């Protein structure tokens, strides 16, 4: 088919479309729906008894802030990735808070090692993290998928990677409010491990979750 013919077909019987909201506003919508859901999961599980004491510890605050920032920038990057005209740096924005998160926990690991020796890096099984993060991140994940499906299918894998990261990071931030797990090595392995796992699974499902729309020519043929 000649391109000029294609233009004639595409512009025939054009239907109006409603432009989507800017990325910032959609991130706010994601937060407005996801934060209450994460809070509900936290409330249902019950706040950890030492939360008041932890909330004045700089390490704990920094870890929580990094997790929340990872969630926020992850959602922003996911929604930017779906659009074709966003600069590349926005797509990799979550790397900065994620690195901060990892560095904060890494430093805590090092401190434990200096204080306790190899005993400070003892790793045991924590079967709670994975399902708890999945539970806390479920609603944020559903909301980001809905927003992405309406808001662009370009770079589907990257969009889903960042969307998965956002949901899992928010689930982890919530988890830290009701689950006592203070050994940094455990947090790195089980919590960040779960975040990485969920993000990768989301990236692999990218094309399934965000399939490209049917060709307008298919409708023309029918």
């Amino acid at each position, binding site marked *: *088919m000649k*391109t*000029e013919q*294609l*233009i*004639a077909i*595409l*512009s*025939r*019987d*054009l*239907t*109006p*479309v*409603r*432009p*989507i909201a*800017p990325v910032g506003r959609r991130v706010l919508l994601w937060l407005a729906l996801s934060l209450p859901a994460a809070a509900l999961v936290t409330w249902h599980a019950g706040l950890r008894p030492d939360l008041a004491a932890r909330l004045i510890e700089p390490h704990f605050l920094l870890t929580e802030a990094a997790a929340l920032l990872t969630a926020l920038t992850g959602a922003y990057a996911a929604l930017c990735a*779906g*659009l*074709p*005209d*966003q600069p590349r740096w926005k797509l990799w924005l979550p790397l900065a808070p994620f690195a901060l998160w990892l560095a904060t926990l890494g430093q805590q690991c090092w401190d434990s090692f200096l204080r306790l020796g190899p005993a400070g890096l003892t790793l045991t099984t924590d079967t709670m993290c994975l399902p708890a993060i999945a539970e806390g991140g479920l609603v944020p994940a559903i909301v980001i998928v809905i927003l992405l499906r309406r*808001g*662009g299918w*370009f*770079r589907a894998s990257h969009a889903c990677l960042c969307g998965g990261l956002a949901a899992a990071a928010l689930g982890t931030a919530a988890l830290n409010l009701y689950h006592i797990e203070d050994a940094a090595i455990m947090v790195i392995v089980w919590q960040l491990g779960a975040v990485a796992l969920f993000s990768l699974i989301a990236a692999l499902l990218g094309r399934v979750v965000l399939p*490209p*729309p049917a*060709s*307008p*020519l298919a409708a023309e043929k029918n």
Partner: protein
Amino acid sequence: MSDEDPVLRKLMAAAQRGESASYARLLETLLPILRRAAHGRWRAASPADIEDVVQETLLALHNARHLHDPARPVLPFVLGILKLRGADVLRRRHRLAARESALDDLPETSTALATNSEQEEVLDAGTLRASIERLSPGQRQAIEMTKLQGMSLEEASLRSGMSIAALKVATHRGLLALRKRLGGGQ
């Protein structure tokens, strides 16, 4: 930013409102820009590939009309689609090209397209017919009825007067003999 972008932005806004004429004008205005950009980006690509990339970009733009923020310029949006879709199209092309052979270059008598070059010889109808003729009468009758005429065992049993078990044995032995004669081994 290009001088024509305010015009493009107006046309895009009209296209989002469903105005066909404005949309056609928008696409016609974009067409040479897209061709030039595609050619500049993928210099090694053939003219057909470039046109494919341009068409895919127009199709994707059609599906992505609602993604354009009226407050933002049109050209980066469209060129962004060109970059992403073009890379997809050319990647797919290269993948296909690695698996396919061009048919145009092969002479009509070439056997390059035969899936099995010995197939013709092995399955030669005359050879097969001659081999069947050389089977014992019982095996030949069983093969002809059950394999060539497609009768059921019951039907063949009624016609030939052989028992079903005898037919089965004769068919099996006949097939083994044929396979041996036609060089298929066991």
